[in-house]
Every structure is written in C-alpha cells, then in structure tokens.
C-alpha cells in the first residue's frame, strides 16, 4: 500500500472511531450504560453516607474492600455489561437502526470499518469505565477522612488504582473484541453475552486447563490485592503479567480479525435482521 493509501486508511479509521465515540458517549442509547456505571457509584455513595462512626476511623480495610467490590461487582458485572452494551451496538445497533448501509457504502475496506468501530468502542468504554473505577475507588477511601485520603494518595494507593485501571482498559480490549464479534454474528447478542458471563463467573472453580479459556483469568493476574474466591475455588498459579498481556492482546486481535472476516461477507437484509 502506498503512503497516501496508508494515510487515507488512517484518516478513515480516525473518522469512524470519532463517530463511534460520539454515538457511545452522547447518544440517547448511552443512557443505559450510564445507569449501569452509576450503580457502583451510587452504592459507594450510600455506603459513605451511612457508614457507622466506628468504621470511619479505621481505613485499614478500605484496600481489601475495594478489591472485593472490584472483583465481584465492577469487573464481573459493570465492566462486563458496559462493554457488552457498547460493543454489541457497534454493528447490531446500526442494523436495528437500519443505517449500517451508509458506512458500508463508503470506499473503505471492511477491515478498516471493523478497526475504526472497534477503536471507537475501546476508547469510549475505557473513558467511561476508567472514570467509574477511579470514582468508586475514591468513594471507598473518602469516608475514612484524612486517614483514607492519606492512604489513597500514598504510593501504594496510587499504584493499586493504576493496576485496576490497567485491568479495566485491558478488559475493554478483550471483552470489546468478543462482543463486537457477537454483534456481527447473533441477532440477540445478549444471550451469548450472558452465557459467557456464566463462564467467566465459573472460572475460579474450573481446572487450570479450562481457566485459560476465560479473559478474567488473565485480567485478575494484574490485580494488586488478592481476594478470597470461596471454599470451592480451585487455586491456580497466577499468570505472569507479560503472558497475561500477550494472551489478552493476541486473543483480542484474533477476535477482531474474525470480526473483519465476518464483516467482509456482511449483507444488508434489514427485514430479516
């Protein structure tokens, strides 16, 4: 490909990504995502308001509390479903809106279309979920007054937050690729999404050779604070960071590649869809 063709493709990817960011962040449909990400914030706010005085004085448990909230609520529910809502809509939303043909009628390879949409989705989801995670993190520490703030602003507090943010961004890449593909394949992608959530939830109880087939197995390897997964969990040696990173990026890239192959054969049959 020539330099000008490269430049054109880059410009097309950026145009598509910007378009998707606008649609994901500012359209009426994003309200559902905002309601979802508002849930942990509302819960943490209520916790802060009604926390007994005796607990306020002690900030030592805040780190563990956030770790539990993050593992069992933020990552496995909020991040998962927010990604599902954003990425499933990239193609399926336009099919339901009967407006996908306008992008299909543009002079761009379908691979570029998939990449642009995916990138837009990753950026939108990351912005929303990183802000949610950061605010939730702050709301866990704030009720503990100056001790909480001190812990929050300590080097370990900030390093922990950075690790959680990294997990969230990686989750956007991985879940995003999966849900975008689901949106291309299934008329109602929420059904396979829920099935996959079941699989992700069961991961701690699966033997290692099955754990490797889930995203959460790799994502939690970046978690700064371990949490107890219950008596029936089958413990596995944590995956080294670089392996987790490679596994997540390779599987995301593979899913995006499959999505672009599917998109190449995509037809406009709105009445059937």
């Amino acid at each position: 490909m020539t330099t000008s063709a490269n430049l054109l493709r880059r410009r097309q990817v950026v145009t598509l990504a910007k378009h998707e960011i606008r649609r994901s962040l500012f359209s009426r449909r994003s309200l559902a995502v905002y309601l979802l990400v508002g849930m942990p914030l509302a819960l943490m706010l209520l916790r802060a308001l009604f926390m007994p005085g005796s607990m306020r004085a002690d900030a030592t448990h805040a780190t563990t509390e956030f770790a539990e909230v993050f593992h069992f609520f933020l990552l496995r529910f909020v991040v998962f479903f927010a990604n599902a809502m954003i990425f499933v809509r990239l193609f399926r939303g336009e099919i339901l809106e009967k407006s996908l043909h306008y992008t299909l009628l543009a002079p761009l390879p379908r691979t570029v279309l998939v990449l642009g949409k995916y990138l837009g989705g990753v950026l939108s989801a990351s912005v929303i979920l990183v802000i949610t995670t950061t605010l939730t993190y702050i709301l866990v520490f704030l009720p503990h007054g100056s001790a909480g703030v001190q812990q929050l602003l300590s080097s370990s507090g900030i390093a922990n937050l950075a690790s959680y943010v990294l997990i969230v961004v990686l989750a956007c890449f991985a879940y995003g690729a999966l849900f975008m593909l689901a949106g291309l394949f299934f008329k109602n992608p929420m059904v396979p999404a829920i099935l996959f959530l079941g699989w992700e939830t069961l991961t701690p109880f699966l033997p290692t050779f099955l754990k490797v087939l889930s995203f959460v197995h790799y994502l939690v390897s970046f978690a700064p604070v371990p949490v107890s997964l219950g008596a029936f969990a089958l413990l596995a040696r944590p995956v080294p960071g670089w392996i987790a990173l490679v596994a997540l990026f390779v599987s995301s890239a593979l899913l995006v590649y499959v999505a672009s192959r599917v998109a190449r054969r995509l037809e406009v049959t709105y009445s059937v869809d």
Partner: protein
Amino acid sequence: MSATKIVFHDVSKFYGEVLGVNKVNLEVAPGLTGLVGPNGSGKSTLMHLMTGLLRPSRGEVSVLGVSPDSPEELFRLVGYCTQYDSFPNGSTGLSFLRFALSLNGYSKNEADERAWASLSRVGLTDAANRRIAGYSKGMRQRIKLAHAHCHDPQVLVLDEPLNGLDPMGRAEMIDLFTAFAKEGRHVIVSSHILHEVDVISDGVIMIHGGAIVAEGEIREVRGEITSHPIQVLIRCDQPHVVASRIFELEHVVEARLIEDEGLLVRTRDASDFFTNFNRIVIDTGVIVETVAPADESVHAVYDYLIGDGLGGGSA
C-alpha cells in the same frame, strides 16, 4: 470485465430458499436506465447486488470493471440512494454528508465545501443544520440523493428516488439525473411510476419474479414483441381516406377512427407500414399532422410482457 459497463454474469440470489433474482445476465451502458417491475420483482435485490450490499449466491457482478467485493474501489465510482428511510440517530443534514465525505478521504475543508454544494444542489441549504429526524419525507429523499452524489460518482444507483417528492421536486431531480447521464455517467433509476421512467430513461430493464424479461431501448423492446401488433396513431385531415387505403395492407389488423384523437392503426409489420404509409400520403395528398407510436411506452410494453402486474412500491 467491461471497464465502461455494469455487468451481471449469470447472477442468482437466494434468501434461504426464497428466490431474489435468477440467472441474470445484463450489460448496462452509460446513460439513464430505468429499472421497472412490480413489488417483490427483485429491483432492490438487483441494486443491492450492484453495490455489494448483497452478495450473489451464484455468478459475478462487476461495475465498470470493479467487483463489489472491493468496496474501497467500488464506492469511489458508485453512489447509491437506497429505499431505506432511516438515518444515523441525531444526524443533521450537514453532519450526515460531512461524515460520508470524510470516509471518502476528503479533508475537513473539502468535505465541508462538497457537503454544502450537494445540499445546495438538492435545495436543502436552509435545513443543513436541522436534524434529519425532523425532515419531511421529501427532504429525507433529497438528503439521501445528496448523500449518493456528494462524492461525484461515475455511477448513480437510485432506488425509487422520486418517492415523496412534490411535482417541483420531481422535476428538479429528474433534471439532475438527466444532467448526470448526459455527462456520460451511469444513472440507474428504479421506479414504479412508469411514465416517469418512460420520459427520463434512455433504456429500460424490466424485471419480474426475479428474472429479466426485457432490456434495451423501449422502441427496440417493443419491436421484438411480435405477439401484439404495434399501434400507431395518425392525425390528419382525411383519416377515413387513409383508413381505407391502409386496410389494403396485409399486415394491418385494425384501423379505427377515434373521435378527437385520430386514426389508430394496429400492424404486425411497422417498417412496411411506414413505407406504405408514406406512399399513401403522396398518392392521396392528405395533410398529416402527427404520426406517433401509441404503445411504445414502458407501461404498454410491460403490460404485453407480464400482464398488468405493476403495483406500487419497490422490491
């Protein structure tokens, strides 16, 4: 693969077990081509196949030598105004065109310039910054047309483009299509309003039940329908004299005087009829006002080929 024509080679499209189009072989030359057929006949399927929105189950399509499998090349050449009356949520007329032009690779300024030019061409400058959701049906049709031609394509594919337009708007749009065709481009228009297709088209493609029943210039197509005698309407000062002479011709099956209209003749051999008619005029000295074919219209031809199967709407 012709670099100047739109070619369908043995193309079939099935939706599961339902037939869309069957074994279509077509070569569409530049100019304005009308695509006519009743509801469900396969007009939109044919247009979707031409633009890669559908893939053929069998056969090959090429547009000016480019396969619809290469959208990056195809849509530099093609603009398609579909039948879908839907738009991206929240778009204004201007943002809708800007987005399309940006995807075409135009810079922000170029995209702006072209978007405004297209809006002006379809008469939507004043509504440029209004949301499309608030547009009237006619305005939505215009913005779709602007979208189809804003990047100055070589081929314009228009599915029922005159739907929802008022008479003035129709006339303006027809002028636009005609101007495009005169520049040597391909303009393919599907319509169920046959007299419009008749007036504007250089040629027609008639489709029924997913099969092409006729294609070419209307006169040629009509000439090939030997089962129905050709009708000619003659207006002259002595129609009864002409009628009596014409009846002597073997291939004339009917000559009927119609009040205030003239003499309607039905003949099985048009060329011999016109040769003899000229002689009759010279011999008798009648003054001829007009001689015009009475059934060389899309509607008549379609009626002869298919029966009166044309309804409203598109496939």
